[in-house]
């Protein structure tokens, strides 16, 4: 991944310089840990990182924006790069408990695209895959193609929650019923559900939220934000550890605000430009030998008792740790 990732200037809770230093390493084999809202980065091969990995009882993977069906210049073979991402996951030292797909599974919501994605993803060595839709997965029929496949046990347009190893996971949908001139949107019904979903949890429960469009305002001019995210995050304010995992922008971005750590993942299909560096947010064409450096997966692990999650991005062309 690029070493030029930028953060929002209004970050608090951590010095800009130290965060930038961490970010210089993001995606290049650096273990990201978040303790009490303060991120630290460790070289992945360090002893501490090895110990953290060994003690970790929960490890899961995030995969995003596979865009099966896309076949333009920015990547004529997105199926091949998704397969490569699956191989990358299967080479991880610890088998992930599950995988989160943060949307844009397909490019045009076509049944054949969903089928092909499912065929490739069934090769992932894991228990199960949780999906939330991207806007490309709900292009037609009010998202029926997505819900018929992945809607079982979910509410509304596919939002759901589950618990694993003491961590509460919440999958949100912010790509439907969007309003003219607006951004991603969760909507009243989903926000009500979220409020009641977390009401019974103790404040010490680590929370992981995953959704397609970023839940923080990265670049509204390109629609990179969610209009009612503040209300959702308001319901999570009392929790000591909140990790928000998003996709949509096809690049790694991170921000820590109080107890909340935000992170966006690389795509497995094509990169997009850094905010404001191009005329629009469309697919970014890069030399063929650089493409796999800008595509990748995200590895997340939770160490019980430490209340922190480690987030590590792996580019497809990076050798296994």
């Amino acid at each position, binding site marked *: 991944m690029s070493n030029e990732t930028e953060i929002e200037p209004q970050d608090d809770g951590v010095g800009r310089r130290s965060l930038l230093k961490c970010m210089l390493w993001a995606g290049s084999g650096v273990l990201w840990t978040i303790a009490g809202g303060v991120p630290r980065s460790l070289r992945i091969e360090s002893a501490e990182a090895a110990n953290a990995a060994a003690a970790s009882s929960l490890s899961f993977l995030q995969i995003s924006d596979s865009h099966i069906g896309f076949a333009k210049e920015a990547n004529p073979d997105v199926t091949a790069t998704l397969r490569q991402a699956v191989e990358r996951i299967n080479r991880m030292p610890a088998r992930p408990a599950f995988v989160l797909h943060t949307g844009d599974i397909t490019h*045009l919501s076509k049944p054949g695209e969903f089928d092909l994605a499912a065929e490739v993803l069934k090769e992932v060595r894991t228990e199960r895959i949780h999906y939330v839709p991207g806007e490309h997965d709900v292009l037609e029929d009010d998202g029926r193609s997505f819900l018929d496949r992945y809607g079982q046990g979910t509410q509304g347009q596919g939002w759901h929650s589950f618990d694993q190893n003491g961590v509460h996971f919440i999958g949100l949908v912010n790509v439907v019923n969007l309003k*003219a001139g607006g*951004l991603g949107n969760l909507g009243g019904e989903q926000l009500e559900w979220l409020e009641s979903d977390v009401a019974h949890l103790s404040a010490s429960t680590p929370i992981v939220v995953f959704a397609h469009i970023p839940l923080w305002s990265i670049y509204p001019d390109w629609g990179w934000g969610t209009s009612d995210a503040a209300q959702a995050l308001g319901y999570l304010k009392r929790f000591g550890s909140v990790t928000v995992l998003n996709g949509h922008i096809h690049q790694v971005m991170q921000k820590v605000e109080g107890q909340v750590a935000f992170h966006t993942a690389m795509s497995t299909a094509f990169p997009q430009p850094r905010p404001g560096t191009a005329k629009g947010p469309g697919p970014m064409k890069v030399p063929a030998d650089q493409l796999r450096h800008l595509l990748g997966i995200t590895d997340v692990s939770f160490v019980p008792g430490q209340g922190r999650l480690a987030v590590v991005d792996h580019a497809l062309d990076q050798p296994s740790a």
Partner: protein
Amino acid sequence: MSEPIAALRPLARRMVLHAALAAGATLVMVPLARRPAAADTVKVYIDNFTFAPAELTVAPGTTVVWTNHDDIPHTITSSDGAFKSHALDTDDSFTFTFEKAGSYRYFCSLHPHMVGMIKVG
């Protein structure tokens, strides 16, 4: 009818450019100052997540054709439900004929920061 002509100028420029690119600048025959008749067809293009022209004024009966030049699908969705396209993949078009006077706001339902307006009158 001066407004529709003004609105057509960017389009005409664009057509000139297209023709120039296609024919080595020797076959530029696009009428620059033509008055639009009621049955005209006017084009809107999508490039880099932007409708161009973003605002257009046409006479009643005018057909507007939107064409997506992006590598990403977009929709043409009226804010008040008057029209809605399917997702337009690269180079796909959507056509709507505006019979009644009025102001029609529209946006891309996938990327709602993309907005446009057709004024009919």
